[in-house]
């Protein structure tokens, strides 16, 4: 029934908060190794949809399929086990600031070795192995960090975002949800991070959903754009074939033209 290269499929997903219907009957598909941009104005339902996929919210109705199998994502832990990772606007908030870069990359997934070679237990942290693996990973992603032993707080915002991203890549996710990853960054750091995202999508074979207000960066990075308005999918297009004007008119809708254009 499912096409082979479909990773995630949402079917008729709806979610209301009291009177407000935040997401209405959304059906969409994410393919393997694809970067999808999710765009829309304020209140279009982007964040709600992302939170449903990440397990932060339960949909009122609808079904979610991962690799063709129906799944219920009841909490972020479950999403995590399924290989769905989320990084929010300030990814650095998902780091332990007083710990080293290497401790953060291996957070929750520490490498250990047996204390005595002949016995399987007790096991101790293999710091040397983690440090060298962290350094290797950062170099392969061309992230500019001079020492993996220094604490996170001694690095800049962009470097912290990159470390957070590296920590997630290290877990080899199937699907990466990026919720406005560049919102808190300066111009140069934004550029670096976008390049990083683009490269990760291509080289690490990870599907990515990128939520953004900024059409420039969406066009820069993604393969396909899905447009949400008032909780509904109003359009879909390949990034290379569509023009920015088309997308803008889809975002604001025919009636609202010109009124909320500054949102995008």
């Amino acid at each position, binding site marked *: 029934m499912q096409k082979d290269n479909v990773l995630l499929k949402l079917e008729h997903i709806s979610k209301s908060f009291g009177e407000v219907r935040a997401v209405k009957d959304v059906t969409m598909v994410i393919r393997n190794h694809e970067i999808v941009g999710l765009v829309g104005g304020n209140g279009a339902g982007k964040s709600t949809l992302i939170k449903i996929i990440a397990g932060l919210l339960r949909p009122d109705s609808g079904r979610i399929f991962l690799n063709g199998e129906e799944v219920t994502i009841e909490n*972020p*832990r479950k999403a*995590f086990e399924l290989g769905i990772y989320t990084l929010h606007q300030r990814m650095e*908030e*998902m*780091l*332990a*600031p*007083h*710990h080293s870069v290497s*401790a953060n990359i291996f*957070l*929750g*997934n*520490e490498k*250990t070795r047996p204390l005595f070679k002949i016995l399987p237990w*007790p*096991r*101790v*942290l293999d710091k040397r192995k983690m440090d060298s693996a962290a350094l290797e990973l950062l170099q392969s992603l061309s992230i500019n960090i001079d020492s993996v032993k220094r*604490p996170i*707080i*001694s*690095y*800049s915002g962009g470097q912290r975002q990159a470390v957070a991203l590296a*920590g997630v890549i290290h877990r080899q996710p199937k699907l990466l949800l990026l919720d406005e990853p560049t919102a808190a960054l300066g111009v140069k750091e934004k550029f670096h991070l976008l390049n990083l995202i683009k490269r990760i999508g291509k080289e690490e074979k990870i599907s990515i959903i990128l939520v953004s207000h900024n059409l420039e960066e969406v066009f820069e990075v993604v393969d396909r754009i899905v447009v949400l308005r008032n909780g509904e999918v109003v359009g879909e297009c390949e990034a290379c074939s569509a023009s920015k004007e088309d997308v803008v008119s889809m975002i604001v809708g025919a009636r609202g033209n010109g009124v909320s254009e500054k949102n995008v």
Partner: protein
Amino acid sequence: MEFVKTLGARRREILSIVLQNVVWIVLCIFVIVNALITPRFFTILNIRNILINASVLGIVVIAQSLCLISGHLDLSVESTLAFGAVMGALLLRNNLPVPLAIVSVLTSGIAVGFLNGVLIRKVGLNAFVATLITYIGVRGIALGIVEGKTIWNLPASYCYLGAGEIFNIPIQILVLIFSYAFFHWILTSTKFGRHIYLIGDNPVAAWARGVNLDGVIVGVFVLSGFLSAFAGWMQSGRVNSATPNFAIGMVFEAMASAIIGGVSLRGGVGSLPMALGGVLLLTSINNVLNLHAVSPYWIQTIRAAMILVAVLLDSFKRRLVRYAEG
């Protein structure tokens, strides 16, 4: 604090290393100065005295530091200490064999710690409130089971931990050193220890990356209860008696030592060797005031001043390592 920005990277590094070890540096200066000006301070007998006085508090400080590093705090340590001591003594009074009494003491500590952990993680109480309940309640149980009385004359084998010696070295001092070395190793070299630090530093990040918060935090409180009850056993062995009024106010001394040693109340920062420095510094100051026959009541004021300085140094230290904007 403006001059921090103008310091070179190398000087910054040196300064931050100095600040990280500031307790031991202060302790060394303190010992050297007092060896010169305080008669009878720098004698083997007195040093031994200081270490003996530091041992019970030292064990409780390990318990407290584990909780503080994980971003929590445990007010119940002193009550657990008294409860363990009284419980052991009461069981021995009722002719229970010594090994069984010891096991019961340690189990009572584990039980209190487990209760703390469950109240925090499963019932969802704030660590302060949860341990306030056990702080009051467990002291109440200790008072209740012996009706406020003191139990004297414990078996010599039970007192060995608190009063015994090996090659003229009191066992409590050896236990103190061994405990610090062992728990420092746990904190820095095992996954469990790393997780204690990470949870204290950023619980949300640890949780999101799949660290078992319930397990680690309940584990920390169980260890804290265990160590406190152990300290209770040691204390009752040292004075060959047990009273439910043991260690009243020790939780504040323990927190003061940990903070002076650089363990952050915000969690995730600090180390046991530094906390030990804090314990020794506080105990030595106490000792010197005794030798000079200063009224012991003044120690409170001095302690307060030291905590203030320690906290100021801590925030200064944070500024040094933080990424300098612009």
